[in-house]
Each structure stands twice: as C-alpha cells, then as structure tokens.
C-alpha cells in the first residue's frame, strides 16, 4: 500500500486490526512522508524515528500474540510541543526550554500510548502557545501546506500543517483562545476544542490555566470522535478534570440532525469578508437541507471577548511562566553572576518578544491599583459572556460562526500584535465560556485557501456537536482535498 497517507486515522486503525497493514508499515510510511515533505512546511520540531519504530514492532508482536489491542492501535500521532512525553524534549517553541527533557508524561500522552497509538514526533507552535501564526516559534516558521508562503495559523500550526500535508492522520494541539480551531480552519482540516476540563491538562505546559484545553486535529470528525473517547477521561492529577466523558461518540456520530436548531449570531458577523460570508451562508444552506432550522441568537457581548481574553490569559500566563527562571531547569544565562542576573538575563535571553509582551501585560493587569480596573472587571465581563451563551443556547442546540475572520495570510504580513489578536475573534468566546467548539472544512477561497466553519455547543455537549459537524462532512468533500504538493 503506497497511499497509506490518504487514509484517515480510523481507516488506518481498522487496516491494522484486520491485519491489512502492520504498525511497522504504517509508521514507516508516516516517517517517509515526513522525510519527503516536512522540509517544505517545517511542521515537526522532532521526529521519534527510533522510538516510533520500536513501539510499532512491539505493537506488531502484540497483535501477533493475540493480546487485545487498544482503541487507537496502529495510529501514528504527533504532539504539539507543549505536551509532555516522558523522556523527550518539550520546548514549547521556546529557547528557554530548548533542552528541557520532560520528567513525566502528560495524561493525554499516557492515554494515547495506553491505547496503542504510536507517537511519532513533536510539532512546532508559537512560543508557549502565544500567537495565531506559529511565527513566534523560537526555532522555525511553519508553512501552510495549501500555500507555502502563508502561515498555517497558530498556535498549533505545526499540528494543523502536519495533518493537512498528510504526514500523519492525527495530532494533538492545545487551544487557549482558538489555537486548535483557527489553524485547522486555515489548513483545511478538523480541529476540536473540548469542554474545559474534558481532557486533562496535566503535563500540558500552562499558558492560561482557566482557558487551556488539549484537543485533536484530524481530517475527519470520525477521527476526532474516536480519539476523544480515549482522551476524555477523568484525571486525578488535574483538579479541573471532569468525570469520565462518553465513550460512544463514534457509534452515535450518524444520528440525524433533522429538527436541530442552529443559532447564528448575525450582528456579530457584520464585518465579515464577502467571500467568507458567502461560504458561511452556503454551509448554513446545507444545514437547512439536512433538516436543521436556523435561529438568530444574540452574542453581541463577544465584541468584548478579545479585551477580556487578553487580560485573563496574560494575567494567568504571567504567573504560569514565572517558573522559567533559570534555577531548576531550562536556560540559564551564561552572563549571570548574581541571583537577580540569573532571573533577568535568563528570561531576557530565553523568552521571545510576544511572550515578554504578554508577561508584562499580565503583570500590569494584576498589579495593585490596576487589578480592579482590569483583571476583576474582565472576570465580571467573562461571567456576563457565559450568561449570554446560556441564553443563546436556550434557543438552539449549536451555534454556527466562521472560525476565522480571514483565510491563511502571508508569513510576515501581520506585524501589529493587536491585528494578530483579531484572528481569534470568533474562537475566544468558547474558551472564556469553557464550551466545546469545532472547526470543519467548509470551502475554499478563489485562491485556494481553505475556509472553516465553527460550531459551538453548551458544555458537555460534545456528542451533539460532533454529530452536527459530521452531518455536514457527510454532504461535503472539502475534507478529502489534499494540497497539490502533498498528494
């Protein structure tokens, strides 16, 4: 089989279980794709050739012995480089952790390996997941497989590009304000942010603790459902971890959506580019054809979402990133001769500009005299936004919006940080409210850049959300498109 890369994760898993493919073949194919194509997009920071090969051989032996196989057996998976894999380097795209070897597994990594997935490498990201283009990685800029001069979006740009280029069928990312959904949209694949607390954050290097969620990226909603059955388990190491999630996501995926009410916050979409608006309306028309009804909902409060987000996320980040001080691990400046110099120079040399900007912003909004005006007010607005979502969901089952206000953009074209922050205008609300959101491929621009549709649902409604997303994917074929250079 020479076209293993065109298979979805579910198809790979089935082929392995049925004995049509060995894990060694699957992993070898994936590694060969990376060798051949990754130099064009630079999605990977590190590839675990030996580790993956060894795990594949062991899995083949396991299958030969007749032992029961895990729910993800045989699937090659890559992790965003802010998710710990014991014994391997976790850089978070930062110089400060360039040589940091993770001493423990993230719960997500542990669950994947427990279910016989094969982790093949770590993908590039904006430093500490701060960015929307993956340009803020300290190591390399990743390209969008659909247009190599464009960014893949971010911060999980490496994970999105790897799937879009079919280097592996499944990757994990993290989403604090849209960092899974936006790059998925820009790369023409599916990206899913679960309910806050659904996937354990243990072993995910924290950015904004009350917003961060690990989630999968893949070509199909089926693959998302399959891996969510594994990832959505309670974890005793994370106090915000929810009780065990459903394990029948995949089997219930085909439930009809006839009669489903889809909310559309029209006034929030006023300034959308005409091309994206047309695509969005086409998706809504398809939902109507599938038997759904559209209802207008009011989410005008989301105009405050970016302001609120950049206060709360940076406040949390400023303290989460305090631990990178050159004392216990990570980069320690060679120029430092005193304790204060260790702190100052190590952080000066170790952090990039965007990270420094957010640490300063977060430190400022928490300072005495300013906390009331910024951090606490932001918390109040966040509570208001949650309430508005609840009201909206009393009228509908899911809410549809575009994922991103613009398609893939040229590398280096956005230099104003505030302009970059606008990339998350449609995705941030989900993180503030803790609700799940999914981006699915819903079209292309005239210049062949992917467009994504975002669906959102109330917390814990992952099943319903995936059903709605899957229904559209059943009547479209955007997700099967592979960029020319990666066929």
């Amino acid at each position, binding site marked *: 089989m020479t076209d293993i890369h065109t298979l979805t994760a579910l198809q790979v898993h089935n082929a392995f279980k049925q004995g049509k493919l060995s894990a060694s073949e699957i992993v070898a194919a994936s590694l060969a794709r990376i060798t051949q194509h990754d130099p064009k997009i630079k999605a990977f920071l590190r590839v675990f050739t030996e580790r993956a090969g060894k795990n594949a051989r062991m899995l083949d032996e396991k299958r030969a012995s007749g032992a029961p196989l895990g729910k993800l057996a045989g699937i090659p998976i890559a992790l965003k480089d802010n998710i710990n894999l014991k014994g391997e380097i976790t850089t978070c795209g930062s110089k400060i952790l360039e040589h940091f070897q*993770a001493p423990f597994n993230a719960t997500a990594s542990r669950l994947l390996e427990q279910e016989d997935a094969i982790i093949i490498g770590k993908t590039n990201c904006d430093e500490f997941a701060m960015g929307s283009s993956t340009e803020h990685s300290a190591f390399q800029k990743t390209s969008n497989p659909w247009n190599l001069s464009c960014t893949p979006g971010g911060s999980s740009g490496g994970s999105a590009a790897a799937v879009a280029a079919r280097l592996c069928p499944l990757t994990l990312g993290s989403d604090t304000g849209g960092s899974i959904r936006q790059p998925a949209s820009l790369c023409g694949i599916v990206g899913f942010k679960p309910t806050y607390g659904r996937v354990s954050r*243990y072993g995910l*290097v924290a950015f904004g*603790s009350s917003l961060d969620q690990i989630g999968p990226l893949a070509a199909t909603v089926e693959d998302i459902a399959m891996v969510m059955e594994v990832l959505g388990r309670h974890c005793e190491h*994370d106090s*915000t971890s929810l009780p065990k999630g459903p394990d029948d996501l995949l089997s219930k995926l085909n439930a009809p959506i006839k009669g489903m009410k889809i909310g559309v916050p029209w006034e929030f979409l006023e300034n959308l580019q005409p091309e994206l608006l047309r695509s969005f309306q086409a998706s809504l028309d398809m939902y109507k054809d599938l038997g759904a009804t559209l209802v207008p909902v009011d989410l005008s409060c989301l105009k405050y979402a970016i302001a609120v987000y950049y206060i709360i996320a940076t406040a949390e980040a400023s*303290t989460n990133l305090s631990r990178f001080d050159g*004392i216990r691990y990570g980069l320690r400046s060679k120029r430092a001769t005193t304790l204060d110099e260790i702190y100052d120079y190590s952080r000066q040399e170790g952090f990039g500009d965007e990270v420094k900007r957010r640490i300063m912003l977060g430190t400022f909004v*928490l300072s005495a005299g300013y906390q009331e005006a910024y951090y606490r007010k932001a918390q109040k607005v966040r509570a208001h936004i949650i309430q508005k979502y609840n009201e909206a969901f009393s009228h509908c089952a899911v809410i549809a919006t575009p994922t991103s206000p613009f398609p893939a953009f040229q590398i280096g074209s956005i230099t104003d940080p505030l302009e970059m922050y606008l990339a998350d205008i449609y995705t941030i609300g989900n993180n503030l409210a803790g609700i799940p959101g999914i981006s699915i491929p819903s079209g292309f621009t005239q210049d062949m850049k992917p467009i994504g549709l975002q669906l959102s649902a109330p917390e814990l409604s992952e099943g319903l959300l995936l059903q709605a997303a899957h229904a559209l994917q059943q009547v479209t074929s955007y997700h099967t498109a592979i960029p020319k250079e990666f066929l």
Partner: protein
Amino acid sequence: MKTAHHHHNWEPVIGLEIHAELNTRSKLFSSAPNHFGDEPNRNITEVCTGMPGALPVLNKEAVRKAVQFGLAVGARVATFSQFDRKSYFYPDSPRNFQITQYAHPIILGGSVMVVVGDEEKAFPINRAHLEDDAGMLKHFSDFATVDYNRAGVPLLEIVSEPCMHTAKEAALYAMAVKAILDYIDASDCNMQEGSLRIDVNVSVRKKGEAGFRNKIEIKNMNSFSNLEKAVAHEITRQISAYEQYPDKDPQDVIQQSTYRWDPDKGQTVLMRRKEYADDYRYFPEPDLLPLILTPEYIEEIRKTLPELPYEREKRYISKLQLGPQQAFTLVSDKQIAAYFEEALQDCTYAKTLANWIIVEFPGRLKELGKTLPETPIQPSHIASLVNMIETGIISGKIAKSVADDMVARMTAPNNLPLDPGAIVEANPEYLPITNRETILPIVEAVVAANAQSVADFIAGRDRALAFLVGQVMKQTKGSASPQVVNELLMECIKKK
C-alpha cells in the same frame, strides 16, 4: 509587666502570625511525603519543583486539620474558600508564586482562651488559612543549594488580632495555640525543626491614642521564652526611641521593618526596612476549584474533636482543685497531660501527683534532656510513689530519694525495677521508723522546746501541729513515719 511599669503611659500592641506545618502524610498539593529530616530533595514530585505541566491537587487531610483547628477555637469555618497565587521570585519558591488563601480563607474569627495571672482572657483570631511552605536555601562560600523537601508542606497560618499588650500575653497565647494544635494532632509543633514558626508584630502607642503606630515584625524565635524576651525587648526599645525623640514625627522614629531575635546578644536585630509595600499580585489560583465544605462535613468533624486544652484546664481547676499555674503547665503539653491522666487512674491525690509530674521529675530529668513520657518511668510508678507519701508509708523527704533512685536506675545497665514499692523494699533505710520507743523521746523533747506552738495548737491552730511534725522529722532526718509521729505528738500534747 516590668517594662510597662517603667513606661506606664505607653501601651504595647502585639499581634502574632503563627505558621504551623500540618502533620499530614503527603504535601498540600502533591503526593510527595511530608517528612522532616530526610536527605535533600528526596521528598519531591514534579509539583514540588514546579516542573512545566505540573498541577496542584488539594490534600483533603490538610483541609480536615484546618477545619479541626477552626472548630477548636470557635471560629467560623467557611463553606466557600479559595486559593490565590501570591507572586514573588525566590529560589526556594519553585513556581515563583505561593499558593495561599488571600481573599477567602478557610477559617474566620474565633478566639484562644488564656489565663493571664488571675485573669481569664480571650484573644481573638482574625483568620487562619492554608498555604504551601517554601523549600530551604543552603548557602556555601561561593554557591548556594536548594532543598525542596519542605516545598509544598501544608501550612496553617494563624493570624491573631492585634489584641495582646504584654510579652507574657504573647507567649501564653502562642503556648495555648500550640497546645490546641497538639491536642487535635494537626501539627508536630516542633519549634526547633521549624514546624511551628512564630512571627510577632509589635508597636507601642500612648495610652488612649487612637490608631496604631508603625509596627516591627520579629522573626526567628525558636522558643516561647525567646518570644517573650524578644517582645519585651522590642517594647522597651520602641518606648525608649519615642521618648528620646518626643518632638519627632513618630513615623520617622520607628520605621516599619523586620527584625530578628538574637538570643546570644539578647536583643532584636534589624533585618530589613519595608520602605514600600510589596505587590504580590494576588489573584485566584485557576488550577484549583473553590473549596466548598458542607455543613454536614463540618459537623462530622466537630463530633470528633477531643477534649481541648482549655476545657481540660478548667476541669483540673474545678474538679481536681489544681492551682491555675499547675493546670496550665500540665495541659500545655499534650504528652504530659496524657501522662497525668493515666497516673490519675491509680492515684486520687491529684495535686501532689501534678507536682511530681511537672516539678519533681522534670527537675531530675533535665540533665538527660528527656521529658517524663520519654522515659521508662510509667505513670503508675509515679502514682504509687504519691500514694505511699499520702498514706504515710514514706515521708516526702524519703520520696525524693526514691525518685532519685528511679532516675538513676533508669540509666543504669542492670535493669533494676523502677517501681518505687520495690525500691523502698530493697532499701531498709527508706522504710520509716515506726518503732514508738525510738521516736517518743524526740517527740517529748520537741514538745518541751516549743511550748508556744503547743499552746497555739491547743488554741485551734492546725498549722502549729504541722510545724511540730516538721521539727520531729528534721531531727529524725526524715526517717520517722509521719503517721507515728502524728500519733505520738497528739498523745504527748493531750497528756499536758
């Protein structure tokens, strides 16, 4: 009160912050063992060293102990409390923020009852909250190391109101808090090992003056007596300073700063000035959910509270007729109090028993550096010794020799029995002289020589008899049976 005597127009104001390490099995936010004295960096997990991706998970046992303390001091246990991040950079702080309870502590209010002199006082508590301890730095000539064994150990910080006015009150309050923590088994309360650390805030003001003047924080007091000395010294220092510069703005005379107590010099030593308030940028810890406690949970814990030191002290005074000082000393140490309780099973002479347990034996054990419960001397041994005294089998003086022997035998190699009955039996000279013929001439001589006392006794003054008994005992070097002496004296006086 010595200082206040000299400075009667000044009023010291004292508040205490007590950090008690809770004696839980694991740390406040990780499964690492909470254990003192191990090799550096043995008792750590990724949480204790602030590894990227590590998350805190709250220890329920620590919550339980905090609630026990709250109930023991009659405080309000918050059904909603919350953890906050407190940011500051220091190598002993693995995340460079401490997780503490700032806006919503678990314990609010309450008070600690203390007997000061003859007066019973309630010292109000402001709050008590849970937080994690820092690691420890060790400095060498040209480098430093950090030990994270202590990092993450649960602390209960107990903050009093600024309600104390003398050094004695401060020390008594601290002892009472320690006793409570001890009784509910919340902390080892070992000041040498740092499991009980006391910071004290001291200021003075003119009597009747409104508001507080600048306060001085004193750290590093490793015993209650040092605490008392440090506070007394600081009060005097501040009053002297204000009196030396009566025309200066008080703000400039004493500036807010931190001192430490130097026990060798016997004075407080400046550590640092607080020129501007630190900004710790407190905000709710997003990795932990608010701590919600149900009234049922709190009531269930209330039912498990043991008899508390202050209740026990009241009982000793009212039911056992112990003196207030005796009762306080006994209850202040949980082990001693338990020892006393056990001895009471075999002996009803509570007052004498208390004296032997808190005065006589500790005096004899001082050199060995041991407390009574740490020795093989059993409560029943002391009970039996006291019974022998009170029933006149041996005199108090002989009893002291017997006690000396008990302590000596304890350390001797040949494992001789420690039971005082056995000791007396083995030493005939300890047995009192009961032979009337031997004692009678001495009694007659004493009666003849103390006519006034005899007259006093006949006139109804019982103390006179005690004096006469004492005279006879003195002449027999304590070897006469007090019972026989009594009988002979009465007979002699009657004959007159």
